């Protein structure tokens, strides 16, 4: 049921702004309510980068003491995000209708 949820949430995060791993993890945990571990996140980022959905770049910002790897969405990633979103909307609408069938 949750297949693709991590991809959907992750692409949604990097679509808004370019982020680094730890910040993505915090956003997914704190704002999306997903309990996702480092051991899951980084291989997933690697996979999405290999398949061309996101790209990465090492940067040194003034606020950080060391370089961070920032991720950004690609055009292919945007198209995939749209497809994931459409699937998600369809699934949630259908499922809500199913759950509320007795309330009518």
């Amino acid at each position: 049921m949750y297949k693709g949820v991590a991809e959907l949430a992750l692409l949604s995060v990097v679509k808004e702004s370019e982020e680094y791993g730890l910040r993505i993890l915090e956003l997914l945990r704190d704002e999306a309510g997903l309990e996702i571990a480092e051991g899951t996140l980084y291989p997933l980022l690697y996979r999405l980068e290999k398949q061309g959905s996101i790209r990465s770049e090492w940067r040194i910002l003034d606020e950080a003491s060391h370089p961070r790897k920032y991720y950004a969405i690609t055009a292919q990633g945007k198209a995939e995000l749209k497809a994931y979103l459409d699937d998600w909307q369809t699934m949630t609408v259908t499922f809500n209708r199913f759950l509320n069938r007795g309330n009518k």
Partner: protein
Amino acid sequence: MNARQKDEPISAWLNNLEQALGSLPADDSLDILAEAKEHIDERVGMGISPFEVLAGFGSAHAYAQGFVDEYLLTRARSSRRTIPMLRTVIRFAQRSVVAAFGLICATISGFFGLWSLVCIAIKIFRPDLVGLWLDLPLSEQHRYVHSQRDFVPLSFGHDHIVFGFQNPPPQFPEHLGMWIYPCLAGIAFLSYFALRASLLAALKRIQLPAGFRPCLKVFPKP
């Protein structure tokens, strides 16, 4: 906890990770190590214990496995070459039902391909032993006297119809003659096509093991 006590488990974990990532290209491996180190340093800098941070990554070997698996799958998918694809499917066959099924289909296809090539080779040197023999009509008792079972069966059919290599050859008419060459070549080509299609389909559908696939719980927001 002093600085040395903090650094020791982190250094050990990173060393293990470096070894476990040995099969990746150097650039990828260095990138993954640098990113993990950066993440750990930042979390430890926030006051979280190294053991707690490392627990989020899991064992170095399990963590590395996710990257290695992904790299192998991506490389095999993009290469589209038969041998690397076959190697990758074999590697995943123990952990993935899709890979195991793909490997079975590829093996069957490979057997037919090899069989047709062996038959072509035998036909060149012993034309009388390879062919399509039909004992017609099918409704009547067959005239074929079964020889001893071959150690490696190279023919299909029984009694009325025999196709492939048979020694001694059946005592009823052979129908294909020299047309057996294009027939066998066609079977070899189709088998190779089926083998590649099985491998490609398996590689496309392989889901990485549960240890790597996102395993999520959705919690209500407080």
